[in-house]
């Protein structure tokens, strides 16, 4: 058997199955006409192929489809029951989802607005404090002064209490 024969032998099954490209089919067929050993191998494979191909196929039981259909219907009913149990009405989960979205949105909206109102209240306190402080100057005019509203004026003076004069 030549190298060429070995290559062709590998393709004999594909040739038999009609799985070779037309050019390869032509080449191998031409080779089979001149090569006795490859032709014998081909015939031998074809013989067993035909034998195997003639094996009787078995038939399924007549009730097989009924069994399959029943199993499909049962599975479907089970799935339907679970769905009804978990989601009795399609609008229930939709409504629940909508409510959830609304709650989440209002929470996000409320938190910054509360911060804003806190800031405004603080500004108002400061402004009134400044006005009150300015009134102490006697002219009633509102002045902007560098004043620390948080300073404790009643603080005891610094000094060493143990120091003797």
């Amino acid at each position, binding site marked *: 058997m030549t190298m060429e024969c070995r290559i062709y032998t*590998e*393709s*004999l*099954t*594909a040739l*038999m*199955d*009609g*799985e070779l490209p037309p050019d390869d089919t032509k080449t191998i067929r031409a080779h089979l006409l001149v090569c006795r050993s490859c032709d014998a191998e081909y*015939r*031998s*494979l*074809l*013989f*067993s*192929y*035909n*034998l*195997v*191909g*003639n*094996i*009787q*196929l*078995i*038939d*399924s*039981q007549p009730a*097989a*489809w009924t*069994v*399959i*259909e029943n*199993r*499909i*219907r049962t*599975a*479907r009913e089970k799935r339907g029951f679970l769905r009804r149990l978990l989601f009795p009405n399609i609008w229930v989960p939709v409504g629940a989802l909508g409510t959830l979205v609304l709650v989440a949105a209002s929470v996000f909206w409320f938190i910054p607005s509360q911060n804003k109102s806190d800031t405004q209240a603080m500004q108002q306190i400061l402004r009134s404090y400044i006005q009150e402080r300015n009134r102490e100057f006697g002219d009633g005019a509102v002045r902007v002064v560098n004043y620390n509203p948080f300073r404790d004026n009643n603080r005891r003076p610094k000094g060493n209490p143990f120091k003797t004069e």
Partner: protein
Amino acid sequence: MKEKEHNAASNRTPSSGIDPDRLDALVNSAKSGDITAFSELYGLYGKKILNYIFRLTGSREEAEDLMQDTFVLAFKNLDSLKENVKFQSWLFRIAQNSVFQKYRGKMPQIESIDVHDSGESGGVIELPASSKGPEDTVLSAELEKIVQKAINELPEKYRQVFVLSALQRLSYQEISEIVGRSLASVKSDIHRARVEVRDKIKEYLGDDYGMSNLY
């Protein structure tokens, strides 16, 4: 010889053997829950799937059960099938997975039938005498046992591709999709499997192998 070759090739069904538009319509109907459409699909593919599983497992009862499992599973998962025209390959893959699952990832070891014990001719099997052509060939029970034994003795990966190619007559492309191996690997495995089966049949038949009146 050409006629015989033609016959061998023409038996092959490269696709499912059904009009793709019809198949598409049936699968779409089944996807929307139409059991009647699915029953039609069962009518088209039920026997093929049954025989595929039967040749893999060697047990008729197992094959019946697994075939039913395959179709129930297929109906449940129809939505996952993207290309309707590939329904057949998809179904064969489900069947194959069912077999693997049943046997925990390993193909079943089929008990071999000793053909030599059952024959009365001292180990030589008598072939059917009268055969006019491939269509008329009727295998004797013993001869069928020989073929089944040869299939059973194949290694796992060869058995799978052998059954799909020689018995189911699927195209190499479809076989490649079902077994999840490359086309080149499938082509090579099919050839090796055929040679092994041929050698085993030859061994059992002895001098009778290749009798021209058989095909």
